[in-house]
């Protein structure tokens, strides 16, 4: 606790002493300021995102035109793309690394890391994170793990290629696939460091939210963003260690001859000595993280949209308590549904029944959230900023993707669509696209806070609409391809004439993917040029209630010059009127949390 006190004191001192000099290194590189760390997370995440999306374009091109030779394959894949023909093993590697990068590096670190760091201290009224130092370490571990993951792409025998779920024995045996050699080792090392980073970050978020809220900021007055980040961090702390142990056991099987996951294997003319292990054990351990991971990715996005939808609707979020309860229910249920990834893994079918039950239960809080979003729009005065469009887009893809979850979560129906493109379409919509929309919404909304500049809204509109059409264009038809029984992770479908008539649709999907990716260039241009040439932001451009907009546009260490303001109300007093039908604060349709209750005003939301 002394460290905390010290940080606070330091921040206090600093707030009063503006002439204190910081070196380039302490300000931009080894910064302990949560706002700078948040930007570091964002930029690293975006760079990883570019790599991840570029990979998806490569393998989509391969699926759409399997007989075609692409020079780009030769340029980017080297010996794995000789003469412009993609090697089947590098196809699997691309699929694997795309999944890993997007799930962990972009949507976990890039999304939660960025916005938890930026918003937790700002929205609860804290000078910084509980431990600025651990926060810095957390970012640099993430950076290190990113570097190792990227380096693993250049390994002689190819990067990890056993799918992002790295099921052994495939991931354990270099004899089974080239990528399970050094590539897999680097993958495991990178992920181990990533987990350490994530744990340090999460612990910091939890401690900060519990201890450092400003006066008046009770738990029930916290913005839903904070609730989401807080609960996400808890799920992370609960489930990531299990992935670490799964990875450790895998490392032991790979390097030290143990048999946790391996048994009765004959490969390349040789019987392995391993006996008694089971890959099913790995599946359990992996999905014990893997499923909560979906919510680690999604909850922050839902938190961000809750905030943005309320602000831009000029209305309170509908059913605040139900939203908090849903977040908690989702978090709890998410830790007991992992088995729905394993209905046909060979585990006892009775377990399948249990997991079907818990899985379909999780649909209830999800449905409540969707209905609450829709009701928040109802009779609002919607300010359709790019952030708002992405938030509405998120609700749309969350519903579409969530509904197909009802099919996949049903053990019976899972039998025939398991591991087909139906699954791919489902999870890309519900967690991939939705979380990305959350990320974009957050960037558009808090860009003024991060960089003191405004992003160009017209480019934002173009970005949204092309992405919205493209994303549905990619993933909606993909359900139908999956219903035809087309398996995922197939290098080419041409060995099954039965799939010949799906080819046109695969081409269409790839075209949409290329279009959507092109739209992201608009975003990148807008992002970078706005940092340098964007219009200067005012303090509270979206007329928002939350506390981050009470800080000055120019970043200062410690966030608020002078004392931290106190909080007197919940964050959603938008368009609140008194008995005469006038806004509670005359002439302004919002009442920031730091505004004391007006005379004669009643608290309406509890």
């Amino acid at each position, binding site marked *: 606790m002394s460290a905390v006190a010290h940080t606070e004191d330091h921040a206090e001192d600093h707030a009063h002493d503006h002439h204190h000099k910081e070196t380039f290194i302490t300000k931009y590189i080894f910064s302990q300021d949560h706002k700078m760390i948040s930007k570091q997370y964002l930029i690293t995440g975006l760079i990883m995102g570019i790599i991840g999306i570029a990979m998806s374009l490569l393998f989509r091109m391969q699926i759409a035109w399997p007989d075609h030779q692409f020079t780009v394959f030769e340029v980017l894949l080297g010996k794995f793309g000789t003469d412009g023909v993609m090697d089947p093993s590098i196809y699997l590697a691309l699929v694997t690394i795309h999944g890993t990068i997007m799930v962990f590096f972009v949507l976990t670190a890039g999304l939660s890391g960025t916005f938890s760091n930026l918003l937790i201290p700002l929205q609860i009224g804290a000078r910084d994170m509980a431990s600025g130092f651990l926060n810095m370490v957390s970012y640099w571990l993430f950076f290190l793990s990113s570097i190792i993951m990227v380096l693993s792409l250049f390994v002689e025998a190819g990067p990890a290629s056993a799918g992002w779920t790295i099921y052994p*024995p495939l991931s354990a045996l270099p004899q089974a696939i080239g990528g399970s050699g050094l590539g897999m080792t680097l993958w495991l090392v990178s992920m181990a460091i990533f987990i350490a980073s994530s744990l340090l970050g999460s612990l910091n978020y939890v401690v900060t939210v519990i201890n450092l809220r400003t006066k008046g900021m009770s738990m029930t007055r916290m913005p839903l963003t904070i609730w989401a980040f807080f609960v996400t961090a808890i799920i992370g702390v609960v489930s990531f260690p299990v992935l670490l142990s799964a990875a450790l056991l895998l490392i032991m099987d790979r390097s030290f001859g143990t048999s946790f996951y391996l048994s*009765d294997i004959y490969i390349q003319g040789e019987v392995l000595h391993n006996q008694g292990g089971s890959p099913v054990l790995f599946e359990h351990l992996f999905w014990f993280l893997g499923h909560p991971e979906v919510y680690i990715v999604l909850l922050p996005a839902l938190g961000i949209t809750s905030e943005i939808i309320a602000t831009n609707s000029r209305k309170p979020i*509908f059913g605040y308590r139900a939203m908090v309860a849903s977040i908690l229910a989702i978090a709890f249920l998410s830790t007991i549904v992992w088995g729905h990834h394993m209905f046909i893994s060979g585990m006892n079918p009775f377990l399948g029944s249990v997991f079907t039950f818990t899985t379909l239960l999780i649909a*209830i809080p999800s449905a409540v959230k969707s209905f609450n979003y*829709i009701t928040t729009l*109802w*009779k609002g005065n919607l300010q359709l900023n790019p952030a708002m469009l992405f938030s509405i887009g998120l609700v749309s893809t969350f519903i579409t993707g969530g509904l197909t979850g009802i099919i996949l979560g049903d*053990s019976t129906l899972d039998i025939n669509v398991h591991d087909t493109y139906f699954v791919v379409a489902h999870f890309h919509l519900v967690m991939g696209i939705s979380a990305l929309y959350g990320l974009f919404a957050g960037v558009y909304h808090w860009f003024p806070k991060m960089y003191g500049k405004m992003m160009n809204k017209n480019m934002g*509109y173009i970005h949204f609409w092309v992405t919205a059409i493209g994303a549905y*264009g990619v993933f909606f038809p993909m359900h139908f391809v999956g219903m035809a029984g087309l398996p995922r992770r197939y290098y080419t479908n041409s060995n099954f004439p039965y799939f010949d008539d799906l080819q046109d649709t695969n081409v269409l999907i790839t075209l949409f993917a290329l279009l959507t990716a092109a739209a992201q260039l608009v975003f990148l241009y807008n992002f970078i040029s706005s940092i340098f040439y964007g219009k200067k932001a005012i303090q509270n451009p979206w007329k928002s209630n939350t506390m981050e907009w009470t800080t000055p546009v120019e970043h200062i260490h410690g966030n608020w010059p002078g004392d931290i303001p106190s909080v007197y109300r919940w964050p959603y007093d938008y368009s609140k009127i008194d008995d005469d039908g006038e806004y509670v604060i005359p002439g302004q349709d919002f009442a920031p949390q730091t505004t004391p209750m007006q005379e004669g005003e009643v608290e309406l939301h509890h």
Partner: protein
Amino acid sequence: MTVFLTIVVIALFGITLWQMSKILKLSQQGNGEHSEVANDKDNDIQGKLMLAFVIFLYVLTGYCFIMYRSYFLPESASEHGIDYDLLMFISMVLIMFVQTITQGLLHFFAYQYRGKKSNKALYFADNDKLEFIWTIIPVVVLAGLISYGLYTWTDIMNIDEEEGNPLMVELYAYQFDWRARYAGEDNELGKANVRFIEGINTLGVDVSDSYAMDDKIVNELHLPVNRKVIFKLRSQDVLHSAYMPFFRAQMNVVPGMITEFAYTPILTTEEMRMSDFMVEKVATINEIRRAKSKELVAKGEESLEHYTFDYYLLCNKICGASHYNMQMKIIVESEEDYEAWLKTQSTFKEQLSAQASN
């Protein structure tokens, strides 16, 4: 018709760009107000685009269901698959109903309540009754779905070896092919383990097990119609998954353990080939293949073979570089044809002695 969708997309994209350029112009003229925050004009245009978008979504949905209807798998070739298909149909109808309504409301509200300076939003923070209703509806509906689903699941997964006279078949997976082992006269599979793999005994069958002697190892799966088959699945190296989409059947193949799945085929290969659905589907496929063959021949390559439908088993768990081509043909035929075929296959004992005499 793919063209149609493409045109719709391009048109919508065009409209978007056109509207964008319009706003761009307008915003350049009226530089009085603080820019980069949506103004009434933006709200108006974006709200209308929201409405256009939900129409796009409906058109896309309709297009997919109509144009891709031949993508859906044909009627189930197994007994339990009929229940499966019914459950799938009910779930599909339900989710499409919810999808249509919620997407409609979401985008319609986005359009209807697009902001204007003069408008006032309604302060509406809570309504317990409303929230209760939309909690209880999913609860009831899902409870129904869960019970129905679990009932079917237990039915499918409850494999009783005593009931009737089920055929015992082992499916053996290895990188990158399948083998099937029939239990033979005694309908009892001999023991096996990868440690017994030697020479011609590629499945590692235990030569000291008397049950194994009459087993028959083949690379094409023949099944008699209307008789339950119990599959015992065994892997030699990594995880595989035996996926038989036409029978609504799938089970992972796990090294170190024996997994199982059972079904009763009810349509012979011939019957499936003659079904209206399959006749049309195969005709379409062959048309595509002919067109492609022409191109190939023009390039001096071999043309594609004419396609006739057969059931297949494919690997559906990533298993290595050639995962995409790990398949086995399945032939469902009458009991007599099946028996006749089985007679022509040699037993494990015969294979062993053939090896010994070489």
